[in-house]
């Protein structure tokens, strides 16, 4: 099984004992939005999820929806965003995320080529489940873009195994049954889901949806290889946070993850399996 432009660095970091941190930003959200990408990189992001805004982000929560609307109102387009990205020299892999309608507009092959030209390493399409992903998966593979598949607590084991097998880059584990958005507590199913994915695959597993505090990130990475931070960042940006502010926030998360990493490895805690000691 080949590992691509996205998966190789993530595996390398994970295997090097690091917990992975993937912050998200909606492309085009502010005039100087690429500053957020730089700040993310500086804060120690292992990959960056780059949202290509869609008019009807029906699977996102209110915050991402608001951010998408704002970016589109500014005139953001997928190709415009990719053009800006192409000029950046980031040493952190970028993962585009968008809805399938934008992919279909260009056609899967052309869309993937555009990503590749912009230097984007991976792609997440939340409204494209396994069953409908064939054409895009082929096009992505042909272009060298890693198509990340999502897994949810409701996914049966057999299907989960197939998702883990066919996903590239990492497996995006949806921590709770719901849409994107900050949540006070991480749901129980998140840990169980991570375990279940890992049963048949050693592909990196990143947990998303609802993670915003260092504590949550640490909690999440007890089982998962890393976390995706989206809504918490976009809420700050929509409230006016500059790249430096968001960078500081991410630095805090990075530090908590790294610290926890050290702590949990020496000595390893005994309860690495669900259902043993509290």
């Amino acid at each position, binding site marked *: 099984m080949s590992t691509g432009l996205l998966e190789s660095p993530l595996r390398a970091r994970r295997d090097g004992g690091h917990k992975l941190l993937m912050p998200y930003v909606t492309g085009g959200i502010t005039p100087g939005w690429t500053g957020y990408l730089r700040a993310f990189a500086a804060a120690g992001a292992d990959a960056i999820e780059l949202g290509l805004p869609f008019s009807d982000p029906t699977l996102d929560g209110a915050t991402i929806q608001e951010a998408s609307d704002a970016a589109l109102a500014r005139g953001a387009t997928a190709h415009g965003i990719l053009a800006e990205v192409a000029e950046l020299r980031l040493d952190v892999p970028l993962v585009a995320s968008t809805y399938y309608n934008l992919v279909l507009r260009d056609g899967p092959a052309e869309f993937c080529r555009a990503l590749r030209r912009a230097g984007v390493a991976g792609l997440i399409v939340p*409204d494209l489940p396994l069953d409908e992903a064939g054409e895009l998966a082929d096009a992505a593979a042909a272009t060298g873009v890693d198509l990340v598949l999502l*897994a949810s607590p*409701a996914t049966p084991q057999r299907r989960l195994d197939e998702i883990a097998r066919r996903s590239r880059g990492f497996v995006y584990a*949806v921590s709770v049954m719901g849409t994107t958005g900050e949540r006070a507590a991480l749901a129980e199913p998140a840990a169980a889901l991570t375990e279940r994915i890992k049963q048949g695959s050693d592909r990196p597993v990143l947990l998303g949806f609802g993670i915003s505090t260092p504590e949550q990130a640490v909690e999440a990475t007890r089982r998962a290889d890393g976390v995706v931070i989206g809504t918490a960042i976009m809420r700050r940006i929509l409230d006016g946070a500059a790249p430096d502010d968001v960078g500081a926030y991410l630095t805090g998360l990075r530090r908590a993850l790294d610290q926890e990493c050290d702590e949990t490895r020496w000595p390893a805690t005994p309860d690495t399996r669900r259902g043993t000691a509290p």
Partner: protein
Amino acid sequence: GRFGEYGGLYVPESLVAACREVEAAFREARTDPAFRESLAESLALHVGRPTPLTPARRLSAELGVTLLLKREDLAHTGSHKINNVLGQALLALRMGRTRLIAETGAGQHGVAVATAAALLGLPATVFMGERDVERQGLNVFRMRMLGTEVVPVGTGSRTLKDATSEAMRHWVADTEEAYYCVGSVIGPNPYPWMVREFQRVIGDEAREQCAGALPAAVPDYVVACVGGGSNAAGTFAGFVGTSARLIGVEAEGGAGAARGSLGVLHGFRSLFLQDDHGQITEAHSIAAGLDYPGVGPEHAHLRDLGRARYVTVSDEEVVDAAVRLARAEGIVPALESAHAVAWVIRAARTGELPPGATVLLTLSGRGDKDISTLKELV
């Protein structure tokens, strides 16, 4: 679940299992005589089916054609929506689901859901954009009077789109207990197919009634309005195997089938109004029920096959048609349904409908809900 290249299941992974369960349950139910009988009984006793096929005698004489109206406006709650909702509510009960979830725009689907929920003793939650809640206060109250919880949605444009997002969000969070009741032949598989099957009672009845009413048994034309397209899909289902020409009439500002291009939204692949960048554009129609930027996947497929033709009429033609039908036949149609009437009037005038042609038109709903709108225009 596929209609040519259209349809499919474009939902987040969290909903795949739930959609599959609905599909499995529906496949089983539709061949179960007990389920079929229970639905048929409910359609007869609660909805008042069969609805009549009314010859529009005076308008026919004016137009020089034979126009027959399939009277879904006489169905309980005032439109064909209840046919589908009752079917799905019975399915939810069969699946052991304990509550219904739905979104609504103008409120017609929401009222139908509230009605079915009351009838079956299921609690229901209907999501509705805050702006729609303000504009459609009476329908909101109607739902609440029927015991349904109406949740105003304050995100985004605070209309149908956002209500849909919120409904899906709630469904995702409670797929074990909640049943998501889609209101048209849209959404992920199995909805477009299932809703058409629940609506085909329109076409099946009309086919049989036409056999009794027309010397040729089958009309030359079968006409219905298309937003998402459920009344048209149900009507066409009865005639797709005949020689009748099928005409779907869309709003000029919401012509997914006539002017849309390939896309994916709300869980299905079909034709949508969108800009060059793939952003969905807003639909505009005087009829709230046609104010949808896409069209059900089966319609996209029928268009590609050339089996159905999709045409558009303007708001002005629609208002004119509503008044004309009211004055000639004593029926104030829903503005949605008036689209179909408007096309027949225009086609008779231009000769596109040859003199003496026989036309079956599905009058999908009554115009009570549109009286305020019409009052300002006529």
